[in-house]
């Protein structure tokens, strides 16, 4: 029996459609400014931390709506510690990165132990971290620097987490007719990714059909591939054309136009992290274990799942991802300061909630979180471009969050009614 219907597809992708509508809205309102290369690129560059922390928060929330409030403060602390290792103590970059990672693992293990094995409620255990790490980070920075910030990170360090690669002039090309510079590797990456997605979509469909399973119609797979491919190609084009143009005066008096384009390192990190967690949650038994613990902890236990280990790993993982986000944020500003990471935990939680991750655990996806994070980012940036006051942006973001949750709950209401009925039946039998 085939359960495919357009209605179901639309239902499943409500948030993606909302994102598209909102993006078009802001593009019109800002007369195309929203869609410019620099804005699209900076949207992702600025919000990179949300995607990375969101992946970790998703794993925590899957286990039963558990959150980590210490993310922002610990990010600040990890940045400060990285600065101390790398800048103040002159430890070489690989070793200082390992040390920071070690700090993350230690904190994650302690947090995971407290939550999973001592059974401290997650929000209380992480509230302690939220308070303590902000203070600790500030103290460290004040002690080691007059400006209470550590800068002067080595270029080696910075290039690992910020800036572009493939920046050499041989990778740049100018479309003379349009007067447009493009970075070739960036485009190639986009084309390769598009090709990969199209191939995977059709191969999955073919495999299903061959084995006689329920499969979507071919035209739907084609439309899906076109949309996904278009998004990737547009993004790669935007990044490709986002470099600066500088003019160099040559010895013969003429001026040479030089294009500084490339692939942002942050984008590569994002692709890696999101792909990794996407696969974990969708394709592996690990992801299944997380979802089951969140769906029904008792069932999980009686099905042979080690609930405590799952909780432990969720928070260990969150801390490791926080360290990565800390390095990216520090590199972006070339400085570790005491204000880094403020409210980042809330950004990550909001991204998950808007992206349809269940606040009670058990369901949610990386792609949903990405859409949620982007939707909030677009609202943020779009309203800023329209020069709307920050206070109003906060109000709108709050309402969007609420609307997303209300939508989520109301759309599940039909199922709830059925549950009530059966539970009544159950009562009779027990009586």
């Amino acid at each position, binding site marked *: 029996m085939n359960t495919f219907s357009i209605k179901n597809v639309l239902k499943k992708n409500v948030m993606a459609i909302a994102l598209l509508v909102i993006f078009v809205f802001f593009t019109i309102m800002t007369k195309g400014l929203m869609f410019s290369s620099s804005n699209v690129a900076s949207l992702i560059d600025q919000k990179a931390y949300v995607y990375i922390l969101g992946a970790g928060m998703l794993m925590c929330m899957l286990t039963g709506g558990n959150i980590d409030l210490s993310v922002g403060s610990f990010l600040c602390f990890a940045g400060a510690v990285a600065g101390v290792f790398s800048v103040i103590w002159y430890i070489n970059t690989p070793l200082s990165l390992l040390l920071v990672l070690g700090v993350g693992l230690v904190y994650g293990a302690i947090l995971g132990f407290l939550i999973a094995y001592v059974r401290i409620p997650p929000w209380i255990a992480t509230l302690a971290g939220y308070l303590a790490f902000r203070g600790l980070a500030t103290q460290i920075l004040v002690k080691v620097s007059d400006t209470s910030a550590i800068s002067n990170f080595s270029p080696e360090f910075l290039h690992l987490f910020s800036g572009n690669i493939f920046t050499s002039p041989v990778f740049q090309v100018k479309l003379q007719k349009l007067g447009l510079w493009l970075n070739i590797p960036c485009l190639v990456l986009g084309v390769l990714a598009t090709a990969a997605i199209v191939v995977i979509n059709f191969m999955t469909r073919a495999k299903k059909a061959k084995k006689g399973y329920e499969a979507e119609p071919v035209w739907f797979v084609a439309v899906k591939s076109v949309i996904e491919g278009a998004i990737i190609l547009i993004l790669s084009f935007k990044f490709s054309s986002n470099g600066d143009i500088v003019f160099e005066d040559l010895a013969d008096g003429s001026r040479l136009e030089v294009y500084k384009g490339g692939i942002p390192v942050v984008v590569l990190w994002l692709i890696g992290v999101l792909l990794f967690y996407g696969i974990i949650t969708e394709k*592996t038994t690990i992801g299944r274990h997380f979802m089951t613990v969140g*769906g029904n902890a008792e069932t999980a*236990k009686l099905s042979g799942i080690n609930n405590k280990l799952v909780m432990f790993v969720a928070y260990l993982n969150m801390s490791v991802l926080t360290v990565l986000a800390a390095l990216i944020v520090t590199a972006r500003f070339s400085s570790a300061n005491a204000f880094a990471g403020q409210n980042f935990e809330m950004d990550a939680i909001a991204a998950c909630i808007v992206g349809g991750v269940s606040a009670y655990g058990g369901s949610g996806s990386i792609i949903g979180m990405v859409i949620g994070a982007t939707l909030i980012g677009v609202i943020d940036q779009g309203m800023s471009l329209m020069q709307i006051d920050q206070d109003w942006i906060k109000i709108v973001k709050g309402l969007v969050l609420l609307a997303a949750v209300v939508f989520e709950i109301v759309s599940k209401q039909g199922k709830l009614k059925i549950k009530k009925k059966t539970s*009544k039946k159950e009562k009779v039998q027990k009586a």
Partner: protein
Amino acid sequence: MAKVLLEMKSITKTFPGVKALDNVNLQVEEGEIHALVGENGAGKSTLMNVLSGIYPYGSYEGDIVYDGEVCAFHNIKDSEKKGIVIIHQELALIPYMTIGENMFLGNEQGSKWCIDWNKTYAEADKYLEMVGLSDSSKTLIKDIGTGKQQLVEIAKALAKNARLLILDEPTSSLNETDSRALLDLMKKLQKEQGMTMIIISHKLNEVSYVADKITVVRDGSTIETLDSKTEEIPESRIIKGMVGREITDRFPKRHDVPIGDVMMEVKNWTVFHPEFAERKVVDDVSINVRRGEVVGIYGLMGAGRTELAMSIFGRSYGIGISGKLLLHGKEVTLRSPKKAIAAGLAYVTEDRKGNGLVLTNSIKTNTTLANLKAISKATFIDKDKEYQVADEYKQKLRTKTPSVEQLVGNLSGGNQQKVLLAKWMFADPDVLILDEPTRGIDVGAKYEIYCIINDLAKAGKSVIMISSELPEVIGMSDRIYIMNQAKIVGEMKASDATQENIMSCIVGVGAESEGSEA
């Protein structure tokens, strides 16, 4: 003849698909202790819920005549106003509040805006004295035992000016001394205050001791009312009324399955309650099950059956577990459900919503949950294979659903039970422990579940079927253990078993009782 205080006339209550009460009549005279007896699921509690307004007026048919007038209770408050107070089987006291606070919860003493604590505790002490409890009303509930807590419940009811007190299984979690004290208190209240009481109980010796009249409920109908004031009523007489139905061909014939060697054996198994560490919930139990055999464990709720099963299944219940577990003749120690599954055990829970299924997940993911290894390589799940497996079981067990992508929460009870069975069949165990496998599902689905059980036995599995339905145990088992109050009190071949001699095993043990169903 005394005045009739309560009369329930032709009460009929239907739930979607089930007729829970069918034309029930009950008459209670003022100042008498009236006992309601019947098997689990006979409809006793439903009847009391109708009486106390938990199922509001209009949701049932028939009349409640109380104190001469027809009543229409819309909620518990309405019935309490009239003096009808129900004390539920599970105590509804809050552990970290004092006795006094608990007693006047929702009935606070003092002005509308301000609680008068002096009055509260003074009043509380007065009622505590009435029930013979010497503890201060400022003691926290968690610091007194369950026996005393039951007395507090009664004091609480008295404080509400009860005229008709309904006690639902009041002694199910009490030991013998506390039970006797409670029954004596009932008699005292009857004598000194002329209190009218309805007691629901499984313990026939207690019923005989305390009740003036006994009404037998069976399959949602009142069968008869026996008057123990005028004549001595033997327990066997009550049992006959309780089980009087005939076993017809509600059970599929099992193909002749050769019964093999002992697959699993439990010796001297003892388990303590996880919270009340001194309470034994399973006491020195020894059972075994052979290849191709269906062994029934019959017992009433609270007998310790679920506790026994769960403690065997990777120690998922209880503390201080002692005894030996042998699989294929070799002693094993299974410290977690994960190890139990690996050793070839499966526990199909009685509480499929609570700890059997993930209602918000699809049939597909629920089916494969206990054996993800079989559909994955290096942790990567083969989703096509998963679909295939789930679909196969869907067809095999005839689960009624359009697709295995359907959420389990949307299925009916019987189909949910099939998914649960599929989950554990896919785990491919040697021993399946089925805990109340047909609870809450309709007759047609029951028959299908019985067929599945027979097929499992035919395939050489060992099946332990826990049930509180006598006909089911007799109709389905090769051999039957009877469990009561944490102990195995009898073992018989199904061919020798009758409803009467199983029930007598239970009654024969006496009034000592410990443990409650978790």
